[in-house]
């Protein structure tokens, strides 16, 4: 036990004396969560729009007021002719233009029908889509208010309710993903680098000649990272609760235990990587290409798995991050207990056992 403490102490010296690893350990998680939380977002807020109003009558004025009163849009300018549309879009600031047809109110009364053209800048398709949905919603709303007094034949009014994330905040989607990514990065990459560093420096040989058993060396090396990963997980959860007001609906204890499980999965992967790579450089490349990319692209973190082509969907099953994201989304957003996520937990557990078994086998071979 005393040997173990001595070993862990040495590992902490390594970590705290290396500015680069310190930065990856503590700077990265905070930077990532801030980046994803604030900068990268699907929400629209104060989008600049322009108005081309051919009627300039009571109804159009009312609608324009309604739109500019919403927090989603701010009216950047009024334009006078069709040919300006192109010009305004090309300047790039305005993302949408509302084009009211001539005799808007008159048509509404006589023909019971008038048109607004919503033109959006679809260079960013997601935003364009969201904008047109929002404009639609505002118009529907306006219409409903107007029709309150008049009795129309019948009406179907869809009552949409977005459960688990009523305000459609993108941070709800990013926090679980970022947490997964950080835990993976810290646990797998940092451990594989720190183990290969000993190999590169030749100190691993010294450790193996010492009475320490190989598994003691490995446990001694990964232990500090378990500890640091847990701290990172806590920091990320606290940031998301207090800065992004993202609630944790389910049990914090369960969330903690599942995170520890995933940390161990990642560590096992890190050890596996270290057994197959001779240098720190290789370990880093394998971690980045082999772990980070799949986490970002295939885990459902950013791109929904259900909309991937079938082969990709199949491949995504072997990515531990996919299961962990399902688990923590369940706990954080839906507040589910173990009875809903035992299957995912079991899969993760199985993967962990597999990776540990494989690396133990590999590690022995290396010693021969």
């Amino acid at each position, binding site marked *: 036990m005393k040997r173990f403490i*001595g070993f862990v102490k040495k590992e902490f*010296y390594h970590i705290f004396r290396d500015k680069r690893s310190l930065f990856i350990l503590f700077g990265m998680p905070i930077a990532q969560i801030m980046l994803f939380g604030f900068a990268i977002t699907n929400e629209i807020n104060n989008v600049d729009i322009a108005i081309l109003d051919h009627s300039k009558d009571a109804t159009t004025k009312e609608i324009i007021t309604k739109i500019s009163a919403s927090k989603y849009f701010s009216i950047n300018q009024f334009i006078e002719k069709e040919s300006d549309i192109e010009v305004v879009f090309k300047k790039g600031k305005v993302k949408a233009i509302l084009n009211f047809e001539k005799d808007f109110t008159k048509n509404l009364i006589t023909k019971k029908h008038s048109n607004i053209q919503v033109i959006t800048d679809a260079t960013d398709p997601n935003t364009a889509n969201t904008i047109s949905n929002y404009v639609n919603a505002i118009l529907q709303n306006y219409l409903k208010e107007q029709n309150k007094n008049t009795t129309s034949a019948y009406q179907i009014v869809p009552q949409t309710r977005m459960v688990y994330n009523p305000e459609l905040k993108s941070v709800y989607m990013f926090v679980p993903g970022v947490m997964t990514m950080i835990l993976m990065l810290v646990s797998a990459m940092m451990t594989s680098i720190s183990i290969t560093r000993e190999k590169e420096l030749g100190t691993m040989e*010294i450790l*193996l*000649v010492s009475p*320490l058993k190989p598994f003691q060396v490995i446990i001694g090396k990964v232990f500090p990272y378990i500890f640091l990963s847990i701290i990172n997980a806590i920091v990320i959860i606290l940031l998301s609760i207090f800065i992004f007001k993202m609630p944790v609906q389910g049990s914090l204890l369960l969330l903690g235990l599942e995170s520890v499980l995933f940390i161990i999965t990642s560590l096992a992967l890190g050890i596996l990587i270290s057994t197959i790579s001779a240098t720190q450089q290789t370990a880093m490349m394998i971690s980045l290409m082999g772990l980070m990319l799949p986490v970002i692209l295939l885990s459902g973190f950013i791109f929904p798995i259900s909309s991937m082509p079938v082969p990709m969907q199949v491949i995504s099953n072997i990515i531990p991050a996919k299961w962990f994201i399902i688990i923590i989304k369940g706990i954080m957003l839906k507040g589910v207990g173990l009875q809903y996520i035992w299957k995912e937990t079991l899969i993760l557990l199985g993967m962990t056992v597999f990776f540990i078994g494989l690396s133990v086998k590999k590690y022995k071979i290396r010693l021969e």
Partner: protein
Amino acid sequence: MKQENVIHVENLTKKFGDFTAVNAITFDVEKGEIFGFLGANGAGKTTAMKMLIGISNPTSGKANVAGFDVFTNAEAIKKSIGYMSQKFALYDDLTVKENITFFGGIYGLTRKQINEKRCQLVEELGLQEITNELVGSLPLGWKQKISFSVALLHNPKIVFLDEPTGGVDPITRRQFWEMIYKAAHQGTTIFVTTHYMDEAEYCDRVSIMVNGKIEALDTPKKLKEQFKVKNMNDVFLKLARG
């Protein structure tokens, strides 16, 4: 009084597939002896040494180190030997003091023993000024001396030195060999590989490996007589060129 053998090797062989790296070597090393293990690069000395220190399994043969069998009792061997490799065994980002504490710790020394040893070391090597310096900032010669002392921390019966003096100046090498003599005088057996033939002259006995086999084994004096040459360098060249 009959001398005690601390290393006994008989027909020890290591094969990697079809390639025989170490081919049935046989030798004994006596307690307190400085045993030079010579050979050109690729002659198999490092492989042979790795089998003796328990990090590589022999293919066949017999080997007994410090009273334990390398096949069945490699773990016990590890407790009774010290090892210093050609790449330096110390951590550059730890101070001298932290390195000593760490290595003492993994060999199971108590805190008290470590402190005593450290004070003794600081005294002997004159490290007072640098105990709290990072090892990475020290000159190579210092690293080597400290490295050797660290390998001796747990009073091993045998110390294995794998090309310990690569890349240092003659004065430091001289001082290093003085340390080796001192350790040998205190009863520690020294098993050393080297490229420097002048160092071979310092050894009590030397063996010369060529292509996986031990081609010569005797005191430097007798070897020179046997090959009718003036120095070890010529002995080595005669053997290595075959």
